[in-house]
């Protein structure tokens, strides 16, 4: 299975790549200025985290991909991580703003809605987060899957498309079950 990771400038883009490679998938990192034609044979896409703001930063090919999905021209399964998660919400009409409190380091994630992404994952687990911005309002057609004490939307999915987002970082070693969450995304979509 061929997976492209669109690099939005995260410290952890390469860790996503490494984790997915170790899970046995064929993973490649693509920069934002990659031509969308290169995505022709891709089976899943991950949007990395990154610095900056989901509503201001130019997202390059990530934006073009979401536009194709919106018009129904393509149907890639997508997982957004941190900034990628926020950008998906922003793109589909949700609202992003600073949280009441920032979240850096450890955070307890509480799963509210079991689904394919959290299959066989405990209801509560420790994850690592690194953000101040958060999703304030979900876009139409999306539901929240998990929350933490300081962040209402730690994970979301689309009701009718194969689009997911997680605010925490499943790729880093300190996140419990993180590798399993990435594996779930790649196996079940």
């Amino acid at each position: 299975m061929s997976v492209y990771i669109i690099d939005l400038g995260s410290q952890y883009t390469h860790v996503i790549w490494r984790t997915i490679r170790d899970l046995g998938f064929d993973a490649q990192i693509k920069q934002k200025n990659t031509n969308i034609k290169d995505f022709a044979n891709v089976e899943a896409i991950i949007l990395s985290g990154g610095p900056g703001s989901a509503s201001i930063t130019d997202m390059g090919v990530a934006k073009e991909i979401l536009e194709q999905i919106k018009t129904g021209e393509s149907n890639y399964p997508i997982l957004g991580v941190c900034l990628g998660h926020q950008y998906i919400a922003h793109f589909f009409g949700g609202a992003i703003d600073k949280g009441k409190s920032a979240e850096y380091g450890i955070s307890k994630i509480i799963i509210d809605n079991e689904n394919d992404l959290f299959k066989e994952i405990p209801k509560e687990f420790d994850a690592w987060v690194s953000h101040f911005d958060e999703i304030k309002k979900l876009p139409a057609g999306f539901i929240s899957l998990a929350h933490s004490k300081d962040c209402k939307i730690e994970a979301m999915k689309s009701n009718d498309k194969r689009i997911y987002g997680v605010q925490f970082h499943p790729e880093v070693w300190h996140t419990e079950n993180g590798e399993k969450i990435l594996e779930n995304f790649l196996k079940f979509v």
Partner: protein
Amino acid sequence: MPFDAKKFIENSILKIKELIGPEKAICALSGGVDSTVAATLVGKAIGKNLTCVFVDTGLMRENEGKQVGEALKRLGIEVKIIDAHKRFFQKLKGIVEPEEKRKIIGNEFIKVFEDFEKGENAKFLIQGTIGPDWIESGGEGRDTIKSHHNVGGLPKEMKLKLCEPLRDLYKHEVRMIAKELGLGEDLSERQPFPGPALAVRVIGEVTQEKVDILRKTTKIVEEEIENASKKGEIEKPWQYFAAILPVKTVGVRGDERAYQHTVVVRAVRSLDGMTANFSPIPHKILERISSRITNEVCEVGRVFYDITNKPPATVEME
């Protein structure tokens, strides 16, 4: 499919042969696991065309140069030690800003190599650069967290071409390769040590006095933590060290006022250095460390323990 060290070694040797061909190479050794593994791989690929160099910057830990030379000799790697401590201290005089420090050190390293290289006629510089080094150094949309001396600290124009066989790996994978190469646990499990050495653990200006204090303090922290983990009192942290702050604080010693240096002890748990949490070291061990430091290093008046995770902090303080 976990990382396959054996396969990596085979592929890497082929790639290095192809890249370097009949040319000569010099390898910048720090004594850590990354550069030693890089040197061993290149040594296997090009044999006698490799020369290994250890630059003594004067910023190393106690006896480090000697230990490195001996450890590598046992592996059959001959190391030339260059004493360059005067140049480094001179360049760092008056420099306070951490990024500037890192860049000066990176530049100076290359100059030392290029001076050395004149007699060697080498075309390639082998470095033990791993993932976090170039990731944190910024580029391709990533913010610069810190310029690792072997990436962001390199001068724009370099005569030597770079060869970095471990670029896509992380520390735990390099350790697996070290084991597969038979480098021994002393080396494969050695704690990470930053390229700019103690310079990034002297917060503010680097002076001989502060480096000397820090060297003594570092030795105590390493001994106490290693002893405690050998005795099973704690899990061995991923990295453990001391830093010296640019502030003095007031104390009382033998009924006399003291106004002395402040040091920070840091110990973290991690797998790959990309995320880390502070090690939950029991108070009695912290007390042992603090008592020894303030008794044995008389210039230090106060000891702090760093309880910040990464993120939001980084492992090193600069």
